[in-house]
């Protein structure tokens, strides 16, 4: 009898513990799936959800705050997604927050990323529809980067040949460029550019090989926009520079004679200086990207680094704009016009 009682107790304990494990698991999973709170439902409309699925996570500033509850087509072929957000966290999602779709982990599934809105904005409410940001396609960016780096290579090689000539102090040219700082600047810029070019090539190759990794890098669309713009500008400036240097190279003698406008020289000086500093920064960046193996992780995880990258690219942008302007000025200047006239006459 006593033995039987003992058995009943043991069985009772066994069953209780087993059920406790089960209930705990249900609770833990349920908490994750937001089944026990009352979730706040918000929605967003995308042109392309890039393989997002029901149950995928919704993140705000990297913290999981909800799940995607449904996906459906609207009659204009766009995709309407509904998200369940945790009640406690929904305060931090403002009405002007934007959503975009990113991916998670190396082989990870897609996540909906909510970009924080203004700090003192009104929090979203049930059934709100958030604005979306469609990402720039990574392939377009890569194409731009590739073009730019090719141009830079050409420019830099031509710059080298110019500076060589300058250094040798060929004829009149040498006399005009008596200011050694300018030459020095130009020289530095040239080296930097060629260095960047190499790195950019490396980088773009890596990007081509591992699209997923860099996907993270360009998760922030503002940043990618900047990069896109920067590379477009780079393209333009390098094209211009190439034109100038072509011309300079072709007519050394004539050029030398006409090169008397000091304001132009000044412009060129400033431009080269700017170019030097920007390329220096770029070099640093490219260096980090290529040589520091953890740089990519840093890019993904460290917001400070991402921020500084953004600032850097903005600065680069500005530098490039300046350089473009300077180059334009060079082209516009009477000097070159005269030179072109002369050329025509020769023809």
């Amino acid at each position, binding site marked *: 009898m006593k033995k*039987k009682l003992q*058995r*009943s107790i*043991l*069985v009772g304990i*066994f*069953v209780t*513990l*087993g*059920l406790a*494990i*089960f209930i705990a*698991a*249900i609770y*833990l*999973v*349920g908490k*994750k*799936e937001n*089944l026990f709170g009352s979730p706040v439902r918000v929605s967003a409309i995308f042109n392309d959800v890039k393989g997002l699925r029901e*149950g995928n996570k919704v993140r705000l500033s990297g913290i999981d705050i909800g799940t995607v509850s449904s996906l459906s087509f609207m009659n204009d072929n766009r995709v309407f997604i509904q998200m369940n957000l945790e009640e406690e966290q929904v305060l931090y999602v403002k009405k002007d927050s934007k959503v975009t779709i990113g991916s998670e*982990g*190396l*082989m990870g599934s897609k996540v909906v990323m909510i970009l924080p809105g203004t700090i003192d904005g009104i929090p979203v409410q049930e059934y709100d529809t958030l604005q979306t940001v469609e990402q720039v396609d990574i392939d377009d960016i890569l194409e731009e980067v590739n073009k730019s780096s090719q141009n830079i290579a050409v420019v830099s090689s031509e710059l080298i040949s110019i500076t060589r000539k300058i250094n040798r102090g060929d004829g009149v040219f040498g006399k005009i460029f008596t200011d050694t700082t300018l030459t020095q600047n130009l020289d530095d810029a040239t080296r930097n550019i060629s260095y960047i070019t190499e790195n950019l090539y490396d980088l773009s190759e890596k990007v081509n090989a591992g699209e997923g990794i860099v996907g993270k890098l360009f998760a922030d669309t503002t940043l990618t926009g900047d990069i896109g713009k920067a590379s477009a500008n780079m393209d333009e400036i390098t094209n211009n520079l190439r034109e100038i240097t072509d011309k300079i190279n072709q007519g050394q003698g004539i050029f030398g004679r006409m090169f008397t406008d000091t304001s132009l020289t000044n412009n060129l000086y400033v431009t080269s200086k700017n170019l030097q500093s920007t390329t220096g920064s770029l070099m640093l960046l490219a260096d980090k990207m290529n040589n520091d193996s953890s740089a990519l992780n840093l890019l993904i995880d460290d917001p400070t680094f991402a921020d500084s990258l953004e600032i850097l690219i903005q600065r680069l942008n500005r530098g490039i704009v300046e350089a473009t302007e300077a180059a334009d000025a060079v082209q516009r200047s009477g000097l070159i016009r005269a030179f072109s006239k002369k050329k025509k006459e020769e023809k």
Partner: protein
Amino acid sequence: MERKSPNKLNFEQLLMDIAGITTFLFRYIGSLFRNRFEGREFINQCYRTGYQSLLLVGITAIILGLVLTIQIRPILADLGAEAWLPNMVFISVLTEMGPVIFALLFAGKVGSGIGAELSSMRVTEQIDAMEVSATNPFNYLVVTRVSATTIMLPLLVFFGDLLAFFGSFIGLKAYSDISFKLFYSRAFSEVYFRDIFPATIKTIFFGFFIGLIASYMGYYSGKGTSGVGKAANAAVVASSLVIFLIDLIAVQLTDILT
């Protein structure tokens, strides 16, 4: 009714067994609702099938978690996806490895026990004795055992899953300095109800059929002491096979339903 050649793979016998087990199943359901439930024997069987299997399942579970973790770790590390390890191991244990491996162990320990016990009761005429004293041996012996295995196996699997989870943690902790909290949140990061419920329902069926088949093999075993061994053997072989059949059906059903 008596199974003639329980061990020979015989097509005729196979069909007879399928028919027999089906009859047994309906008899179980009928008896469950019609007759007085043998509560004390049920508790006793719960004790023997559940509680007494806990150690075996527990040790296996810890080793399972440990081994899976240690074996998968280098592969995931090569891919740079070591962070997915807890998740991968836990999901595979939760949905497939746990239920099937623990059910097979259960079939080996409890199924053979039931087969041998009922068979020896048949051989020594104990079942006949119950029958002629107007007590319902099916109700007393089979219903209690099948009910016990049906309820105990899912519980054992819960214990096993939990211990495999700890085993996996220990395995990972040996190689990297991961905190329990991080391990836990990674392990649970991709676990959903659609993983837990089908697996649990599956184990209920595993438990039910292990009990049913083992009881059937024992209840209708051949005469003589060799019948006992054969019944135990047939109980394990048939229920192991059925575990995989149920698993196959379950995976297809889950696939359709989710």
